[in-house]
């Protein structure tokens, strides 16, 4: 009797899991399939196309109207630099805030917390005017600058993780004559690999996904990031460009998704550590 119950329970669980999995995967599969479908329209009679084509991928990179390759390279460049600078600024400042007790520390943490509560768009107009004054509009440098400048504010996760690393480790290294910088490089960084991976990954992918600020700053088509390009592509004529858009989605999403799945272990650790510690 008991065994039969558990069989029923298990099959019910599996059924739910399968339904959920279909829901989770369906949009992605649909987009991948659409990207191989001939013609441009969103509407199609069948889920599986009768013939498959690589035209849209080809058009993305060779077409004159949408210079996808250029956008891709732009985004990659901005994302890499943003990632490097953000991680650098974030870890350095959070190391200081986690390990040292100095005057003004409490104030700084409180200010960080308060600044995080303002809607981020509030600062947009001012940043726009500053960039205008500095003659930096429509440049990638401006994007990297603004993305990295605010990075330290998102560092609570890193600080939370640093806090969990026992202080006795760095104290003993200090006694052995290591400088603060050596302690940071040789002890803290290697021990905080999960959180560094997490932060690096999120700041890298953040650039791929942000189109609000990018659209505000980048004006000429040659300077677009993929986010701006894709938005323009789909926002103008939904039904006639859809397959092209789908192909673009696939090309953007595949590397990032693989990166995420590949670094899954770090992701879970980073997310949990950060969230639990606030």
């Amino acid at each position, binding site marked *: 009797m008991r065994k039969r119950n558990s069989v029923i329970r298990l099959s019910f669980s599996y059924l739910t899991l399968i339904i959920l999995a279909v829901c*989770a995967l369906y949009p992605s599969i649909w987009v991948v399939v659409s990207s191989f479908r001939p013609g441009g329209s969103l*509407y199609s009679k069948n889920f599986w196309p009768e013939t498959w084509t690589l035209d849209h991928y080809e058009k993305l990179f060779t077409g004159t109207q949408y210079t996808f390759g250029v956008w891709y390279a732009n985004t990659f460049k901005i994302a890499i630099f943003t990632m490097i600078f953000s991680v650098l600024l974030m870890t350095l400042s959070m190391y200081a805030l986690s390990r040292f007790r100095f005057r003004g520390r409490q104030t*700084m943490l409180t200010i960080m917390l308060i600044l995080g509560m303002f809607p981020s768009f509030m600062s947009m107009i*001012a940043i726009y005017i500053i960039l205008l004054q500095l003659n930096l509009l429509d440049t990638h440098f401006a994007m990297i600058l603004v993305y990295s400048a605010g990075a330290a504010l998102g560092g609570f996760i890193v600080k939370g993780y640093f806090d969990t690393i026992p202080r006795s480790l760095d104290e003993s290294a200090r006694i052995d004559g290591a400088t603060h910088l050596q302690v940071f490089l040789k002890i803290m960084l290697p021990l905080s690999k999960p959180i560094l991976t997490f932060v690096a990954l999120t700041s890298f992918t953040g650039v791929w996904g942000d189109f609000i600020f990018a659209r505000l700053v980048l004006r000429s088509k040659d300077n677009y990031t993929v986010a701006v390009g894709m938005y323009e592509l789909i926002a103008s004529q939904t039904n006639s460009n859809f397959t092209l858009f789908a192909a673009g989605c696939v090309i*953007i999403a595949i590397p990032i998704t693989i990166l995420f799945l590949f670094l899954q272990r770090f992701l*879970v650790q980073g997310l949990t550590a950060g*969230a639990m510690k606030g």
Partner: protein
Amino acid sequence: MKRHRNIAALLSVALQGLGQLYNRQWLKGIIFLCVHAFGLYYLVPRLGNAIWGLVTLGETTQKFVRVGKGTQLIKGDHSIFLMLEGIITILVLLVFLLIYALNVYDAYQNGKKRDEGKGVPKFADSWNHATVKHFPYFMLFIPVIGVLFFTIMPILFSIMLAFTNYSAPNNIPPANLVDWVGFQSFIDLLQMKSWSKTFYGLLFWTIIWAVLATVTCYFGGILVALLVESKGIRFKKLWRTIFIIPYAIPQLISLLVMRNLFNAKFGPINQYFAYFGLDGLPWLTDPFWAKVTLIVVNMWIGIPVSMLLAMGVLTAIPRDLYEAAEVDGATSFQKFKIITMPYLLFATAPILITQFAGNINNFNVIYLMTGGGPPKGEYQFAGSTDLLVTWLFNLTLVNNKYNMSAAIGILIFIIIASISIFSFRRTKSFKEEDMLS
């Protein structure tokens, strides 16, 4: 003997670096002198103008003057540039004064060392001292400057905008001047009928949205995690990987895809409905169904994160708790009710608050799915699914009602800040100084 310390300090008050030179710290003195020279060079021509600009926001508008046959444009004051330059100059002044104070303090301390008969440290020594003892300040210098100029200053600027009449169509520089108007924007927003109707309507929907979005994702995630981790389920890792995929795809992409998926005319969802002989639903164009769609799509995006978190907690529950319960003869349902659930809820409760605050400002889902639509006639520049943030965004970039959007930003801040303070006081983490320690 207090001779040296007083002279050094006084000299440093008179001119940065002079006290250091008096203390025979040549390199340091020269560095301070350079800072001083640069500061004066920057500040002197600007400071008076900055204060005038901040107080008056400009006095003359641009006008056309007849020159011979044609007309010539005489540039007037640009209130917004004046305001921004004013803030920047004041911030630079503050940084300058801070360095000034440090310089006087340093001269005094080294003078004291001389009074006490100790030698003053050489430059290399002070450099070492500074990088060891004041190490955190060195580490924080660049991030702080970045945050100061690209976060704090813009926010200050926006807060000030809320107290001006900077809005289309009558007060847009350079054609017109902008003036300080005190709390007028807030009064309009809360009391003038056309604005207040939109504001309260959107506030109501924002709160409903934040509650629903948070609760559905949170419990959805916990349920999925429990299901995957429950006894007898095989291929746990595979299931987990499948359920992470929505989180791994960049949000911009998945939202734009969803928008097409739910397209009422051509989208596949309605096509399936038609296949089963049902009428399609106006997923994104009907006020009620648009809200439902948004919540569902948000679940699709948000559940993976909650699931990962819940899984992390589940593996951290000590096994001996379950063993003890088994010894006492607890059924699996009892174990779940007495151990698993309380543990999960307790460990993940702080996330609820951050997610709630995040959902109030959840711009992407709304903007990319419906763009605030479908439009609602009685609203001022907003549609029926607009949140306060998306309204703020549109007011800024589309309608140029800068003062109103700044006022809304401040109100959003007040809402989020009070929720956070209220909950931090109640959660244990605040007392255990997790957050601010």
